[in-house]
């Protein structure tokens, strides 16, 4: 490694103009897709091609409509798709903005140094691949190939994952686990021997009572549940929302419980206390299917609503009334497991409590509760066996996070910073479609890890902050310009969905499958990608399940029949053996006990904000997905900055005015890099402030997003690690208001 590369300066991507670049050779045959009748709007002759959305990970299937010039016009939902039911959310509808964004990455770039200043130079794909292959060869020789990690959040991850496995590393991670839904999967697995999965197996459509704890559907625009909540409430279902903020869905709820943040466990234990002590639980179900009921009964004996009142600020009669509301609806009740659940570090235990409450009410495996999803048994194109890595991601943290079933993005980041205890640190990262600067908590730690790398390759469509730290940037084309793997998702009915290009890739961009295959060939690993092109691969795979690429190009979505009539396997108390040690639903978790963790969830007091500070709560806006949509022209048109929600009493104390800009400073003295607008609203508690995640971009190349709003990720410097599975609890940060900027930040 040359000395000039020791310091990895953030580079504001320059000279990326594509004016001089030749456009990519067409990779695709555009003759397929359905030709529609002429539209009555003059000049709009439409053709449509199937896709599934990549703006969030609900992956709704849809149609991309192009006009007679072949220009992409609009994207609409696919009527046969259970994820979208023919209706996309605003982000999917605005997906065309991702394609049209003129700030996109346009050609491969390689970090270089000119007169002592680090900069990027344009490169051909071949040069970029040669550079990466050479660097990885050195990493493999000096440290072993297993010191390479892939961070991926997107469809391209399948191909890049194959590349990494072929190279000899299985450290493949997505921030969607340790930064998001991991504790939920572990908590439910410990209870039912199965996780919740995505899309969540919740039967909202037919429920009579939906309990949401911190989930803010309608603002979190996961399409399926938003649609089904509307359907269910129209049929008379009630909603109980537990949230320190009067969220959109709180406004649609029969009960809004404005809980004091960080006390949810107390409420869950008190609910179980009421349901057991008032004999409201499903006795037959509990007797037939569960293990450890008496332990649980004893465990929650003292957790009365009066006990919980002092912690949660929720009145005892409200706790009782809502418990009875759930029990009245039982078994057609859902205590929703949520999705982003990495809050306070005891999240696996909290999600255990959610799972157990559902078990008491008999909702798992029942109509209106949790259904049994099925997906098509799908065989991928055969390739040679991957080599067995000498070390795996688990070896980076010996003896810790024993229940983690997937690699931890934060764990790999931590294991990149060399320490004396660890004999091997990660030396190379490939980052695809995830802006780790905003995604991982504790930015200083992430930057320290990046500085320790020998190679950082970023594959993305946009110049996100992470690209500024890359050694090589590979511009991926958008989902509207490429094929990806067949979407094989679990739902009430198994379905397949195809994504195919609706237009040629703009600029000198390429799809991930092409990048992975060509880089593999450069690295001498071409045998692991034995197909000629993606069409051959997809056609072979589809033919194994009785379809074909030609059929999928026409229909987009193929619904299959379920293998068994077991959508609700416990509806009539049918015999069932759960995948747990006892074969039962474990109210008392033997797996937790075996590993030395609490077998029954306990309430733990969490730190409270110091005087003059407020708990930082963050969430979603319906028109944005994390930071990845922040520059989309259609979506920034709907919302181009976030604001900080402040209760009027607090605003008065500080003399704040609506729409004034200020900076937020956290308990560690870290100040937001950019100012944020104040929104004074009754919709937030006095001990908390709220902001939407994904704003406060510092890369000037994101011309619409640069400097707009502030980043919550800047302020999340204190992380509470989940001991069971390594999740990063991020809701234990407190902020105060500051009326001038912090010190200049170099990036």
């Amino acid at each position: 490694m040359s000395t000039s590369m020791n310091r990895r300066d953030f580079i504001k991507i320059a000279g990326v103009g594509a004016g001089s670049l030749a456009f990519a050779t067409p990779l695709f045959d555009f003759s397929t897709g359905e030709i529609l009748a002429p539209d009555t709007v003059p000049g709009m002759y439409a053709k449509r091609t199937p896709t599934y959305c990549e703006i969030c990970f609900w992956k709704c299937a849809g149609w991309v409509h192009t006009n007679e010039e072949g220009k992409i016009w609009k994207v609409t939902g696919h009527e046969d798709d259970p994820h979208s039911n023919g209706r996309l959310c605003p982000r999917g509808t605005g997906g065309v903005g991702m394609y049209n964004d003129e700030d996109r990455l346009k050609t491969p770039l390689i970090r270089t140094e000119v007169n002592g200043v680090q900069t990027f130079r344009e490169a051909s794909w071949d040069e970029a691949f040669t550079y990466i292959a050479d660097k990885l060869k050195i990493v493999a020789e000096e440290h072993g190939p297993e010191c390479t990690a892939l961070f991926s959040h997107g469809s391209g991850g399948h191909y890049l994952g194959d590349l990494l496995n072929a190279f000899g590393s299985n450290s493949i991670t997505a921030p969607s686990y340790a930064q998001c839904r991991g504790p939920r999967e572990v908590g439910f697995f410990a209870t039912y021997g199965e996780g919740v999965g995505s899309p969540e197996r919740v039967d909202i459509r037919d429920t009579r009572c939906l309990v949401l704890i911190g989930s803010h559907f309608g603002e979190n625009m996961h399409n399926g549940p938003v649609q089904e909540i509307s359907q269910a409430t129209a049929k008379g279902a009630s909603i109980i929302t537990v949230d320190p903020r009067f969220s959109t869905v709180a406004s649609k709820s029969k009960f809004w419980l404005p809980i004091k943040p960080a006390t949810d466990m107390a409420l869950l234990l008190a609910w179980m206390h009421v349901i057991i002590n008032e004999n409201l639980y499903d006795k037959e179900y509990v007797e037939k299917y569960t293990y450890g009921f008496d332990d649980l009964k004893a465990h929650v004996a003292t957790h009365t609503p009066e006990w919980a009142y002092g912690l949660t600020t929720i009145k005892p009669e409200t706790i009782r009334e809502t418990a009875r509301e759930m029990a009245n609806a039982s078994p057609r009740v859902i205590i929703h497991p949520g999705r982003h659940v990495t809050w306070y570090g005891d999240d696996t235990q909290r999600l255990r409590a959610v799972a157990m409450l559902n078990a008491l009410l008999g909702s798992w495996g029942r109509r209106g509760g949790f259904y049994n999803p099925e997906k098509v048994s799908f065989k991928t194109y055969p390739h040679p066996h991957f080599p067995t890595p000498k070390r795996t991601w688990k070896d980076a943290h010996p003896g810790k996070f024993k229940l983690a079933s997937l690699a931890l993005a934060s764990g790999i980041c931590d294991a990149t910073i060399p320490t004396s205890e660890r004999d091997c640190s990660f030396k190379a990262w490939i980052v695809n479609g995830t802006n780790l600067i905003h995604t991982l908590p504790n930015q200083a730690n992430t930057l320290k890890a990046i500085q320790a790398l020998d190679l950082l390759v970023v594959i993305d469509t946009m110049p996100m902050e992470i690209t500024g730290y890359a050694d090589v940037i590979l511009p991926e084309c958008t989902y509207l310009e490429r094929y990806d793997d067949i979407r094989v998702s679990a739902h009430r009915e198994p379905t397949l969905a195809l994504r195919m290009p609706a237009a040629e890739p703009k600029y000198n961009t390429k799809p991930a499958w092409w990048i992975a295959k060509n880089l593999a060939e450069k690295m001498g690993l071409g045998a692991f990608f034995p197909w000629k092109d993606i069409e051959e691969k997809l056609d072979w795979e589809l033919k194994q399940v009785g379809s074909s690429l030609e059929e999928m190009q026409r229909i987009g979505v193929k619904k299959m029949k379920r293998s068994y009539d077991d959508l609700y396997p416990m509806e009539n108390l049918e015999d069932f053996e759960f995948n747990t040690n006892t074969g039962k639903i474990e109210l008392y978790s033997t797996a937790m006990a075996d590993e030395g963790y609490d077998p029954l969830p306990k309430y733990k007091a969490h730190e409270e904000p110091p005087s003059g500070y407020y708990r930082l709560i963050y969430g979603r806006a319906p028109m944005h997905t994390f930071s990845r949509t922040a520059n989309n022209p259609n979506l920034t048109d709907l919302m181009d900055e976030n604001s900080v929600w402040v209760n009027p009493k607090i605003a008065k104390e500080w003399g704040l005015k609506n729409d004034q800009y200020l900076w937020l400073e956290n308990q560690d003295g870290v100040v937001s890099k950019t100012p944020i607008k104040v929104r004074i609203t009754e919709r937030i508690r006095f001990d908390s402030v709220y902001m939407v995640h994904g704003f406060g971009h510092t890369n000037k190349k994101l011309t619409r997003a640069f400097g707009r709003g502030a980043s919550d990720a800047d302020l999340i410097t204190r992380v509470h690690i989940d001991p069971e599975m390594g999740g990063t609890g991020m809701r234990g940060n407190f902020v105060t208001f500051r009326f001038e900027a912090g010190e200049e930040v170099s990036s």
Partner: protein
Amino acid sequence: MRYAMAVDTLKCVGCSDCVVACQTENNVPIGHCRDWIVEKTTGTYPKLQLEIRSERCNHCANAPCVRTCPTEASHYAQGGIVLVEESECIGCKACITSCPYDARFIHPEGYVDKCTFCIHRVEKGQEPACVAVCPTHCMTFGDLDDPNSEISRAMATRKWKSLIPEAGTDPKVFYLI
């Protein structure tokens, strides 16, 4: 035939899908919109109410924009839909100032633009783009003269309101409350 739209405020979550669907369907330039979201919070913590509305041109039966237009560019089309004939519009903005709903804007090409109830889709038997996209199914479009239409039934069975009724514009967008 009297076309109208009903927006169910109990279902609407204010996601703005209707806004972006309209923008792509009708090639509305970035920076402009033919429909938009209004959120109104009332009460004090913790006793709060929130009303969310997807708003647009009200296609008034007694439309001030049509009356003030000096060139008859603003006119009633089939089913009472209020339209602007681009080629007749001189961009004088009289209609913009007369509209109590602030539903119109000057298109960068110089003419006045606004919601058309997606007449090009309605003519083909399709719903307006905003109605067709809404994930919560909060919007209903149809003919008030047909007592069996979905909108007539919604208006007959639900409590509803229209915006600024005192302006006497006889709006044809209704809000189910």
